[in-house]
C-alpha cells in the first residue's frame, strides 16, 4: 500500500506540471492583458509600455512560464497584479471559507442522498422511487445560480429569515452562529445540486447489491430485513459511493465558484472570478494550481479509501 501511494505521488508530479502549462497557455490566450485594468484617459503609451515591461509581459510565453515555475519551486507564488499582495497570503485567506462551504455542502448532500437512495432502491417502482427520481432529475437540471437567486429572494427578501449573502453580518464580530446563518443557504444550494446526482448513484449501487446472493444467505440465517439491507447490503453498496466522493470534489470546486459569487461568499471561487476579470495571472495560476492539487489529492484519497473499505482490494 505504501509503495502504491509513493507511486501515485510520483505520477502526480508530471500531471501537475502538465496542468500548469495548460493553464498558463489558456490564461494567456484570453484576449486582453493585466495592463488594460490601469488604462484611463491620462495614461500614455509610455506608461503602458513601462508597466508591461515591469510585469515581464514582453517576454516570450515560455520564459514567463519558467519564471513562474522557478518562483513556485521556491515557494513564491508571486504578487497579485491588482492588489500587489503576495498571492500566497491572498489565496490562503480564502481557502478556509471555501473549504467550509464545500465540506458542509458535501455533508448535506450525503445526508440527503444516502437514506433516500436506499429507500428508493428497496422500494423500487413505488411512489417513493418515482418521487426520488424526479427530485434527483430536478437537482441535476436546475442551475445553481437560478436556485441560488431564487432562494435569496424567498428566504432573505420575502421571509427575511436568512441573510442575503456574505460570511459575516456587516459590522458585527462574527461568531459561530452568525457564520452558520450565512452558511446555510449557499451550502444547501450547493449540496442539493450534488445530492441530485448522488442519489442516482446510491440507488443504482444499492439495487445491484440487493440482487446479490449473500443477502439471500443473510435472510436464510433468520436476520431481520432491516439488518439484511442496512448492515449486509449497505456496507457493500457504500464502496462505489465512496469513490464517487472523489469525483464530486472537482464538481464542488466548480460549483463553488458560481455559488460564492451569488452569495458573495469570500472564498476561492469569488477570488477566481475577480482574478479572471482583472487578468490577474499570478493569482489565477495559484488558484488553478491549488485546484489541481485538490483534485489529485481527492483521487488518491478515494483510491485509498476504496482499499480500506473493500477487503478484496489490495494495491501492490
Amino acid at each position, binding site marked *: 500500500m505504501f509503495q502504491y501511494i509513493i507511486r501515485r505521488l510520483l505520477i502526480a508530479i508530471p500531471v501537475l506540471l502538465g496542468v500548469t502549462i495548460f493553464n498558463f497557455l489558456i490564461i494567456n490566450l484570453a484576449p486582453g492583458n493585466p495592463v488594460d485594468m490601469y488604462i484611463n484617459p491620462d495614461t500614455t503609451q509610455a506608461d503602458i509600455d513601462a508597466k508591461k515591461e515591469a510585469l515581464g509581459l514582453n517576454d516570450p510565453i515560455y520564459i514567463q512560464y519558467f519564471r513562474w515555475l522557478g518562483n513556485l519551486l521556491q515557494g513564491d507564488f508571486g504578487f497579485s497584479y491588482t492588489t500587489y499582495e503576495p498571492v500566497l497570503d491572498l489565496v490562503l485567506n480564502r481557502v478556509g471559507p471555501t473549504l467550509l462551504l464545500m465540506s458542509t455542502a458535501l455533508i448535506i448532500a450525503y445526508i440527503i442522498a444516502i437514506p433516500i437512495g436506499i429507500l428508493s432502491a428497496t422500494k423500487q417502482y413505488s411512489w417513493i422511487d418515482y418521487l426520488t427520481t424526479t427530485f434527483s432529475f430536478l437537482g441535476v437540471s436546475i442551475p445553481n445560480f437560478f436556485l441560488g437567486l431564487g432562494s435569496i429572494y424567498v428566504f432573505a427578501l420575502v421571509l427575511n429569515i436568512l441573510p442575503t449573502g456574505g460570511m459575516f453580518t456587516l459590522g458585527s464580530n462574527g461568531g459561530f452562529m452568525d457564520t452558520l446563518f450565512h452558511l446555510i443557504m449557499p451550502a444547501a444550494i450547493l449540496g442539493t445540486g450534488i445530492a441530485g446526482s448522488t442519489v442516482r448513484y446510491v440507488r443504482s449501487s444499492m439495487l445491484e447489491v440487493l440482487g446479490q446472493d*449473500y443477502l439471500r*444467505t443473510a*435472510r*436464510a*440465517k*433468520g436476520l431481520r430485513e432491516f439488518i439484511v439491507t442496512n448492515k*449486509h447490503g449497505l456496507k*457493500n453498496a457504500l*464502496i462505489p459511493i465512496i469513490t464517487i466522493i472523489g469525483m464530486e470534489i472537482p464538481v464542488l470546486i466548480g460549483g463553488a465558484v458560481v455559488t460564492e459569487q451569488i452569495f458573495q461568499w469570500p472564498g476561492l471561487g469569488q477570488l477566481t472570478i475577480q482574478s479572471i476579470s482583472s487578468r490577474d495571472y499570478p493569482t489565477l495560476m495559484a488558484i488553478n494550481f491549488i485546484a489541481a492539487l485538490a483534485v489529485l489529492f481527492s483521487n488518491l484519497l478515494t483510491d485509498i479509501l476504496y482499499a480500506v473499505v473493500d477487503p*478484496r482490494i489490495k494495491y501492490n
Partner: protein
Amino acid sequence: MGQNILEVDKLQTAFRTDKGEVVSVEEVTFQLQPGETIGIVGESGCGKSVTSLSIMRLLGKHGYIKKGSINLSGKELTKLTEAEMRKVRGNEISMIFQEPMTSLNPVFTIGNQMVELIRLHMGLNAKKAKSYAVEMLEKVGIPRAEVIIDEYPHALSGGMRQRVMIAMALSCKPKLLIADEPTTALDVTIQAQILELMKSLKSESETAIMMITHDLGVIAEMADKVIVMYAGQVVEEADVFTLFDEPKHPYTKGLIDSIPHLEYDSQEKLYSIPGSVPTLQQMPKGCRFHTRCPHVTEKCISDKPPHICIDNKPDHKVRCWLYEANQQEGMYKEEREVHV
C-alpha cells in the same frame, strides 16, 4: 416408524408477475424422518428450488404459498408470522446454496458472519460464540480454523467457502438442512470432498437433509429417497434403490438413460428426451409430460394423471396413466392401512 420431522402436503406456490399469476410449484407432497436424506431431482424450471424456498418462506415480495401445508415437527410453517419464521430460519431449518463464491458477504470476516448467526439463535456471548464458530470450522475440515475465522471470504477457495457455509448452516443444530445444488459449481474432486463431508456429518446427527440437484449421480450417492419433479409436479417418488433399479415414469427413465455412464462400454447413441420443457403458457392440458413421452396415449393428452402407488409398494408413487391398472389395488391397500 418414527415421527416425521417434515411433512409437506400438496404444496402449491405461485408468483405475481406482470403477466399475471405464475404457478411454479403445482403440487408437492413428501415426508422426511430425522436423519433421512431426500433428493429432489429435476431440470431447470421444474420447481425444485421454489419448493425449498417455500419451506423457508423466502419467496420474496412476489411469491406466495397458494395452497398446502408444511409441517415441521408439529409446527405449521405456512401459518407462522414473519417474526416467528425468522426464529426458524438458520435455527431449525438451515439452507445452503449453489454459489459458494457469492453466498458469503465479501466485506465481513468469516467469523463475523458465523458469530452473527450463532448469537442470534443461541444467545451466546461474543467470546463463546467465536470459539464455538472455530469448533464448527474444524468440524468441517477447515485447516487452521483459528486463523481462517478472521479472514475474509475472498481468501478462500470455492470448496472452502462451501465448507464454511455448511459449518454455518449446522451451527444451530437444525432439524432440517436444505442443500440447493451445493456442489454444482465445484470441481469434481472438491465435490467429492464436500459430499463425503456431508455424509459423515449426517451420520453424527439427526439432521434431515433435503438435497436438491439435477445431478442423478449426486442423488445416487447421497439420498435415501428421491422425488423427481417435472414442470412443477412430482412425477415419481421412491427410495433411491428402487428409483434407479425400477424407474417407472417415462421422464425418470429418460433422464437415467440420457446420462452417459462411466462403467459401461462406450455407447453408440445416447438416449435423449425429445423436445424441451414446455413454458407455462404452453403447458399441456392432460399429463404435462405427454408431448415428449414415447408411450403417450389418448388419455394422457386429455386427463391429468393422479400421483398413485404402484406394485403394492406404498413408498413408490408415480404420476402416469400407464400404471392405471395398479391404481385400484394401490388405493385399496392405502385404505386398509389407515384402519390399522
